[in-house]
């Protein structure tokens, strides 16, 4: 394996074993890039429980037409029950708005530009799933998502809750209409805690 980081120990000149290597706190786990046929959902499965938090970073676009934008739904562990809730704060270029959804079958995790809007433009998103492997807590998410199309766009913050104490092993992202378009790409990272 190529050693990519020798940060702290190398400064101290006390490397004594492979486990002295500081591998940093953010670990790339998996990437899903949508091909030419599109995809109904993007899914990360068999997520190891060895990190403290998870982060998804990506770009997305929906094939839904003629809509300019659709919502992004997030599910954990493939649970389709009414066990999710969301609060959000968004701006559409004209006004700011806030709202909530309770007893949903998904978390609202942003808005994605769709086929009715400017070609080649994609949303950017950062989704955090906090303390995802803890079996004593309901799971919470936070999302920063936006898209702009030179005259239209949405930017906002979303927070979500899954009323379940199970460790998160699967994450599903799906547009509320259409499929994920080609070149949509989402990457999953594990974030370590101290001592991990």
């Amino acid at each position, binding site marked *: 394996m190529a050693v990519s980081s020798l940060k702290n120990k190398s400064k101290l000149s006390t490397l004594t074993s492979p486990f002295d290597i500081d591998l940093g706190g953010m670990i790339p786990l998996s990437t899903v890039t949508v091909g030419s046929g599109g995809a109904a959902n993007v899914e990360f499965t068999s997520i190891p429980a060895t990190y403290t938090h998870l982060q998804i970073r990506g*770009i997305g676009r929906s094939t839904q037409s003629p809509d300019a934008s659709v919502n992004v739904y997030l599910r954990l562990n493939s649970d389709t029950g009414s066990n999710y809730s969301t609060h959000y704060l968004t701006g559409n270029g004209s006004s700011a708005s806030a709202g909530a959804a309770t007893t949903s079958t998904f978390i609202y995790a942003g808005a994605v530009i769709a086929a009715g809007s400017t070609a080649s433009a*994609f949303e950017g*998103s950062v989704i955090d799933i906090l303390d995802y492997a803890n079996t004593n807590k309901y799971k919470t998410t936070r999302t920063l998502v936006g898209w702009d199309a030179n005259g239209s766009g949405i930017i906002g913050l979303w927070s979500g809750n899954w009323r379940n104490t199970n460790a998160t092993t699967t994450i599903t992202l799906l547009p509320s209409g259409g499929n994920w378009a080609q070149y949509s790409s989402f990457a999953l990272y594990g974030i370590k805690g101290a001592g991990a």
Partner: protein
Amino acid sequence: MPLPSTYTPIATNTLSSNTASVTFSNIPQNYTDLVLICSTASATAGGNELNCQVNSDTGSNYSFTYILGNGSSAASGRGSNQTRWAPGEQSASFENPTLMYFFNYSNTTTYKTMISRRNTVSNLTSAFVNLWRSTSAINTIYLYNASGYLFLSGSTFTLYGIKAAS
């Protein structure tokens, strides 16, 4: 076997004197996202925007949509057909932390989306989504004050690369 980490520092620029602009050039293309964190102040009072251009493009190819809160209300607005992004605030004190996420900056297929968190801690916080209508890979980031004021000595600019799993 441990997996390699990411969120790798690429370059840091700490200004030792008042400076008109900061440029990150020859940005390596082997990451998925870039993160740019700026802690800046303006050498001239009055406040203004921290502006940003990429790849030396001065055309009207930039746009953005934002939401902000000023302590009493929230608002949203946008800029279209702009010659730059406006991802940050500027004032005479170091109260303007700016964070920029450049998503999939090195692909040559999609327009480029950047999200920024723009703040002046004494009076507002905001989030911007920014579009550059070009499919070119981003290899240069240029930062400057909208009024031509100098960045104050001590301003810092740090660029990180985040690499996804292949």
